[in-house]
């Protein structure tokens, strides 16, 4: 295990709110996103999506489309070699089933790929879609998880796949998990109380404002270049090479600025399409999803049903916990095993006990495809567990805060479930080496006014407070890794090349700060080049909250190595011990009379010593230290209408020692806004035929500035020994707690327990009526 010792360089480049290095150009609207630069001769692609949720594509007649002036090419399954793969952007070998081909011969959800058109203009491509004649054999659509489980006569995937479909060809089960620590059934018999409840989680969508968009072309050497809005450039290169039968050497994936990802771009949603059409036409091809396509054919958070069974003693000691998850992965199994694995692994350790049982049945259906979305299964599990803890407290007649305090995980505790559940394989056990959870609870309680609930603002309203605890991880232990290259220039500036993927969270800035800190220079001297598979070293990409913790470790190591080289050059010039050379404030010195600026030393190295100070380092962590959050909601409910007014929301988050506190807060605030939607109004509604009923931002509502409560964000710094500068992850943990905290607050206000979110007025109203009866 790597522990980071405090660096020797002076000057505080980390731990302060420097200007985000790309912010000005974004605010000026400069051409920096994928679609902002169009290569000459570019064609516009459109996807003909299936009008049926489940149908064999018997024949495609594109002759009328091809006759339309301006249409250049149409492709469908008979022209494209079917190589099974997964579109999930995960490390090789991916734990997701290989159940996907570029162009399927069977549509498995409404909007699934039937044909691709490329044309000289977008309008022509759109017009051509209507001129493609398709013969379908319509099959029964499985849109209900229980029906999908019960039926073996209708299979979403008929072919057994040697690479990972749990019961390929025999059932609709895409993934199963059954892991136990201790013996839950036996333990439950010894408990004073056993509390069992069922919770339902909706299908929601990441809704980054920039849709999926990709442009590809052949460069002057005939190599395929894909410029795309992605979180996983290196995984993409690997997958594209395999399914297009090209060499990795002949593919370059470039990620420009990205307009939000949130997990939905940890997936090859469309890069294979543009690449295929570029290879066919030898011309640049662009494809961008419409918002409707985003909501029907990108990825969603897995809908789940979770049965929680908890055995507890009269004094509040939790003896046993069972979580049984049934999940809907939709038409394909991207992230099916691992998202569901996280639902237990990232959540159940909050309350360590000797007996934990975690079961998953994840089903294929003909619904929209589920996949990665910030939190990656944990928001579902956290909603179930943290709602359930309130229910257990009620059964015990115990204060819900006290019950949490009595049982929550503490410094030095181990997490036995992590050992049993890695990323689809045996994982690594986890010991908590830093936690600010106690402080977070205390500060959060204080900020929300836990012991002095405010009266309702109007006589017809009821007021309630709710809370939830959450933990997540910092990268995937023993799997996620990244590399960084640093190089010094004669003006004392540094080129930092990282595979790490800035998708708006600001990783380029944070990594520049870390690099500068190690070299004792200002972060403005660091020029960051990220995510170009030709020019930067490898990184798994931006997911699992890994970038600052994992990729940051690589940056620190590379910068330290280059600093050691520079110390050697300096020591030789000045005849002093290399170990005594000090870096700081853009200067290098050894004692009071031996000093140079970094620029002077760099010039000396390049022109006198004739060596290029440069280093590449890789970093992986065998740990995934959890960040912690204690989150609190203050709501008012109108019992006559069921309307919920979220007045105040407090997040107290231990994300280690933040490198850029302002951006860490921004991660928390953004995550909370997404989770408020999850709690109160977001749901992709799919009818029995598999049709999305609300595929636009009018009907699929995400939080606007007017939907937000008063937000209080508290950073609770801790020093994580395995993280550079004590850092842990911040991106995901704050999305877990808001939904249960809000629903617990609703229950506190009106006595009605909502086991199903979003807590729409209608649902709240019904629940109040039921609770009253």
């Amino acid at each position, binding site marked *: 295990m790597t522990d980071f010792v405090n660096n020797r360089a002076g000057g505080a480049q980390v731990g302060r*709110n420097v*200007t*985000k290095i*790309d*912010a*000005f150009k*974004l*605010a*000026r*609207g*400069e*051409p*920096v*996103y994928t*679609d*902002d630069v*169009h290569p000459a001769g570019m064609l516009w692609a459109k996807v003909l999506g299936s009008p049926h949720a489940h149908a064999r594509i018997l024949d495609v007649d594109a002759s009328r489309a091809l006759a339309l002036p301006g249409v250049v090419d149409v492709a469908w399954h008979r022209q494209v070699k079917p190589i099974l793969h997964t579109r999930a952007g995960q490390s090789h070998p991916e734990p997701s089933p290989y159940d996907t081909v570029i162009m399927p011969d069977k549509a498995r959800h409404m909007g699934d790929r039937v044909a691709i058109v490329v044309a000289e203009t*977008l*309008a022509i491509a759109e017009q051509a879609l209507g001129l493609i004649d398709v013969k379908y054999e319509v099959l029964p659509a499985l849109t209900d998880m229980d029906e999908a489980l019960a039926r073996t006569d209708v299979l979403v995937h008929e072919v057994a796949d040697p690479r990972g479909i749990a019961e390929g060809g025999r059932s609709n089960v895409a993934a199963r998990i059954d892991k136990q620590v201790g013996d839950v059934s036996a333990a439950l018999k010894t408990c004073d109380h056993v509390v069992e409840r069922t919770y339902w989680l909706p299908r929601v969508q*990441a*809704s*980054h*404002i*920039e*849709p999926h968009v990709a442009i590809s072309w052949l460069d002057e050497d005939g190599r395929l270049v894909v410029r795309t809005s992605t979180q996983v450039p290196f995984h993409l290169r690997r997958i594209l090479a395999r399914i297009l039968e090209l060499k990795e050497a002949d593919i370059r994936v470039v990620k420009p*600025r*990205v*307009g*939000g990802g*949130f997990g939905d771009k940890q997936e090859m949603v469309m890069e294979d399409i543009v690449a295929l059409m570029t290879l066919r036409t030898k011309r640049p091809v662009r494809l*961008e999803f*419409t*918002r409707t396509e985003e909501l029907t054919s990108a990825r969603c958070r897995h809908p789940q049903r979770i049965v929680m069974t908890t055995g507890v003693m009269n004094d509040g000691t939790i003896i046993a916990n069972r979580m049984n998850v049934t999940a809907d992965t939709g038409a394909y199994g991207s992230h099916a095993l691992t998202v569901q694995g996280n639902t237990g692994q990232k959540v159940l350790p909050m309350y360590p006990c000797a007996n934990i049982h975690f079961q998953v049945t994840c089903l294929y259906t003909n619904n929209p495809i589920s996949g990665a979305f910030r939190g990656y299964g944990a928001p579902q599990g956290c909603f179930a567990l943290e709602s359930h803890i309130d229910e257990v407290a009620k059964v015990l007649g115990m204060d819900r805060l006290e019950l949490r305090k009595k049982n929550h995980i503490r410094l030095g505790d181990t997490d036995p479930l992590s050992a049993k559940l890695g990323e689809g394989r045996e994982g690594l056990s986890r010991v908590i080496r830093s936690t600010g959870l106690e402080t977070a609870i205390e500060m959060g309680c204080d900020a929300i006014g836990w012991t002095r609930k405010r009266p309702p603002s109007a006589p017809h309203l009821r007021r309630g407070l709710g809370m939830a605890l959450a933990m997540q991880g910092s990268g995937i232990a023993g799997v996620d890794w990244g590399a960084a290259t640093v190089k010094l220039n004669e003006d004392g500036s540094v080129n930092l090349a990282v595979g790490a993927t800035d*998708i*708006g*969270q*600001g990783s380029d800035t944070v990594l520049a700060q870390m690099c500068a800190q190690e070299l004792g220079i200002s972060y403005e001297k660091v020029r960051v080049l990220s995510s170009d598979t030709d020019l930067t070293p490898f990184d798994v990409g931006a997911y699992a909250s890994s970038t600052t913790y994992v990729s940051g470790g690589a940056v620190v190591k590379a910068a330290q190595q280059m600093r050691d080289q520079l110390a050697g050059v300096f020591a030789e010039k000045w005849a002093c011990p290399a170990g005594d050379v000090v870096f700081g404030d853009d200067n290098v010195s050894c004692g009071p009379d031996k000093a140079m600026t970094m620029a002077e030393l760099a010039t000396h190295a390049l022109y006198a010593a004739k060596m290029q100070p440069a280093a590449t380092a890789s970093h992986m962590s065998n740990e995934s230290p959890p960040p912690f959050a204690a989150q609190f909601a203050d709501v008012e409910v109108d019992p006559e209408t069921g309307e919920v007014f979220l007045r105040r929301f407090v997040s107290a988050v231990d994300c280690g020692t933040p490198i*850029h506190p*302002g*951006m860490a*807060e*921004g991660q928390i*605030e*953004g*995550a*909370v*806004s*997404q989770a408020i939607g999850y709690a109160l109004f977001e749901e992709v509604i799919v009818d029995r035929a598999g049709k999305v009923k609300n595929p*636009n*931002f*009018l009907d699929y509502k*995400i*939080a*606007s*500035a*007017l939907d*937000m409560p008063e*937000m209080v*964000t508290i950073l609770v710094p801790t020093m994580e020994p395995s993280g550079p500068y004590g850092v842990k992850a911040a991106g995901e943990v704050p999305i877990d707690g808001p939904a249960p905290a809000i629903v617990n607050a609703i229950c506190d206000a009106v006595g009605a327990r909502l086991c199903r979110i979003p807590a729409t007025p209608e649902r709240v109203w019904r629940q109040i009526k039921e609770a009253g009866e």
Partner: protein
Amino acid sequence: MKIVVKLNGRNREWEAAPGATLLSVLRDGPQEPRMTSVKRGCETGDCGACTVLLDGQPVNSCVVAAARAHGHAVTTIEGLAGDPLMTALQAALVEHAAVQCGYCSPGMLVSLYHLLKECRAAGTTPGDHAIREALSGNLCRCTGYVKPVAAATAVAATLAAVGRAEAGAR
């Protein structure tokens, strides 16, 4: 169809297909330069990423027919480069870490620019609610609106202080 528009102060002649939206002619080309500050997020008038000023009023350019702009003035962020109020707003957004992915930022900036201009003309200072109202058509999935609202509040306060100082000098 020929359309003549005063884009960012300069007369431009566009060739636009009938039914083309203002967003598509501004953003997609073929006429250069493309106005890349004008983003496409939904094309149904719900996200505000495509906000521009049409005769000084903020509109969602994705639901405005290009033909509707014929003979009118269209202003995008590109055309406000160097404008002191816009520059102040951009700096505030950046310094408050209100720009995450930045995809919503130009649209937000156009809405805030319009709000603060109106307020300055009326001699008022927008409060939290007025700022949120002005931003309510600009969806942002990254920030939770906390820092954008704080940035706008700071600029509004500066404008108010400047206004008071000017009034005092008079």
